């Protein structure tokens, strides 16, 4: 296990500024303040840090896109929305080392020339917001954040904003909209946030873990980070593992760490002595891996990519044998149908359709050709939407059906007199956790997976 970020998270006293400072908190920020903005950006660039929010975009490069014109204000937004199913690493980091997160925000803000930063947390993280607020009060009282941070002459204020329950607020432009007091409808790009972001000013959105890494890099130097990991994936990664493992939780590993070793050592093996069936390595938005596919992989961007999936958020969901993949997929598809913001048609309609067709398959009312229909609906969403949620919703559907085909085929062509589905009309709005209201009367309720694993 690595400890670049989580060195002190086991000690509850780390939340206190005195304790944290005794261990070097804000020294990275101090070092950054002694450098020019460009030098800080160059240092982060040299470290090889890539965004930990999902897409893995190089952080130094993202910061270098900020070119404020005369009279423009620049903003740094810390993305603490963390709603990707299976992801809870930021939860851990903010709870146990809030000062590290604040330091990361300060470093990022300084590097891009922002004097105002926000941390946007999902509504469910209200208690974590309190932890951060307490840390922020301490840091402000100590002159670290506020006017003339650490006596440097650089001013920074940090705002905390809680959401109110919408996955799409994690998407960077959705986040900006929400922060502006609007519906979190993502914006069409270009213009990108680096040009037109919060208040139409140049803005950077970074994940919590990304910024925490930046703080540690400033403290220890780019070389200390670049030395860890692989060529294309520098540093460490927080993995939040859940599902059919003995020790679910958050672990920090060096990039390039073997996946199977992680499952057996860190995660304690598959629960109940079962065999591994499948893994979603980076939150439900990335393609699933079969046990055979997962066996040779390592935890880093390039290894995951070579297997046709992504490291994503590092939200690892483990399935043991006996899990019904069609049931699991239905639950995932319902998530996207529910969380689609509804702004663009392929996603709004398509996610609903995918969940609806899956539900009828599982209710024993599938039609011949339904699997093909699911894949086709997916094809019609992908690449045709305003934000990444549309594409994300397709990945599980496509990968589950292709990789666990027999389980779906066992459901598919059923000789059933199905009710009057209107294939060309508008399907009933999908209910949240059950069949649509209109349909409920006609179909059997969907039962849980026949053989639970956990």
């Amino acid at each position, binding site marked *: 296990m690595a400890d670049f970020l989580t060195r002190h998270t086991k000690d509850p006293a780390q939340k206190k500024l005195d304790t944290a400072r005794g261990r070097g908190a804000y020294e990275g920020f101090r070092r950054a303040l002694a450098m020019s903005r460009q030098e800080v950006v160059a240092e982060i660039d040299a470290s090889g840090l890539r965004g930990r929010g999902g897409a893995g975009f190089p952080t130094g490069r993202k910061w270098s896109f900020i070119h404020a014109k005369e009279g423009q204000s620049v903003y740094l937004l810390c993305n603490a929305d963390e709603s990707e199913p299976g992801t809870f690493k930021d*939860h851990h980091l903010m709870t146990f080392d809030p000062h590290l997160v604040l330091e990361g925000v300060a470093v990022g803000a300084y590097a891009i020339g922002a004097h105002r930063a926000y941390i946007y947390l999902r509504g469910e993280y209200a208690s974590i917001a309190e932890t951060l607020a307490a840390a922020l009060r301490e840091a402000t009282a100590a002159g670290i954040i506020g006017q003339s941070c650490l006596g440097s002459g650089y001013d920074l204020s940090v705002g905390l904003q809680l959401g109110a329950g919408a996955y799409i607020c994690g998407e960077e432009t959705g986040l900006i909209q*929400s922060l502006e007091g609007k519906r979190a409808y993502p914006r069409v790009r270009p213009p990108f946030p680096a040009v037109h972001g919060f208040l139409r000013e140049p803005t950077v959105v970074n994940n919590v873990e990304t910024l925490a890494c930046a703080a540690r890099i400033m403290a220890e130097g780019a070389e200390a980070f670049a030395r860890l990991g692989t060529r294309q994936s520098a540093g460490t990664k927080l993995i939040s593992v859940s599902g059919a493992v003995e020790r679910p939780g958050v672990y920090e590993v060096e990039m390039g760490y073997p996946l199977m070793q992680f499952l057996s050592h860190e995660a304690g093996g598959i629960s109940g002595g079962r065999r591994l069936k499948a893994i979603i390595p980076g939150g439900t938005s990335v393609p699933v891996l079969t046990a055979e596919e997962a066996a040779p992989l390592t935890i880093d961007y390039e290894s995951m990519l070579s297997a046709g999936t992504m490291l994503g958020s590092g939200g690892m969901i483990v399935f043991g044998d006996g899990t019904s993949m069609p049931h699991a997929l239905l639950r995932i598809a319902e998530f996207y149908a529910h969380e689609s913001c509804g702004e663009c048609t392929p996603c709004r309609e398509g996610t609903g359709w995918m969940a609806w067709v899956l539900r009828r398959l599982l209710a024993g009312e599938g039609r011949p050709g339904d699997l093909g229909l699911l894949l086709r609906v997916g094809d019609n969403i992908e690449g045709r939407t305003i934000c990444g949620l549309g594409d994300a919703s397709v990945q599980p559907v496509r990968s589950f059906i292709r990789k666990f085909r027999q389980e779906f085929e066992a459901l598919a062509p059923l000789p059933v007199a199905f009710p009057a589905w209107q294939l060309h009309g508008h399907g009933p709005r999908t209910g949240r956790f059950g069949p649509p209201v209109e349909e409920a009367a006609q179909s059997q309720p969907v039962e849980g997976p026949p053989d639970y694993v956990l």
Partner: protein
Amino acid sequence: MLTSEGLEEIEATRAEEPSARHALLTALRVTQRERHKVGPEEIEYIAGLLGLSPAIVEGVARFYDQITASPTGQHIVRVCGGITCYLSQSDRVAQDLKGFLGIADGEETSPDGEFTVRLVECIGDCDHAPAGMLDDRFVGPLDERALRTISER
């Protein structure tokens, strides 16, 4: 309509932010916390408070799941129905919990208005599956003991 504490929170946000609109999400959250709903009356009130059109307030309010048009109970128990928790049978947990609290099938709130039980999407606490929240606190895993503690409050 709101407590002075709630009003202060909204005022403070408004003072700090570039415009009243930026305090809207906070105003909605505070109102939901204190009134347990944001219905037509609350919408009118917030609109007046922030100098916004009620249509705007309503449009934003109805976008977010935690802002509800009809009243919830004094306390909300969120049971996670996300993929990990679902695989550890959280839908059954929600059913049991409703039983404990005397909430009828198809209803979310107990007859005494004390508790609302709601199945929600992943709450970011998957290592405690089946995860749950009592108001703003994470209380997973929702085993029998956790359920008893909740229902005895």
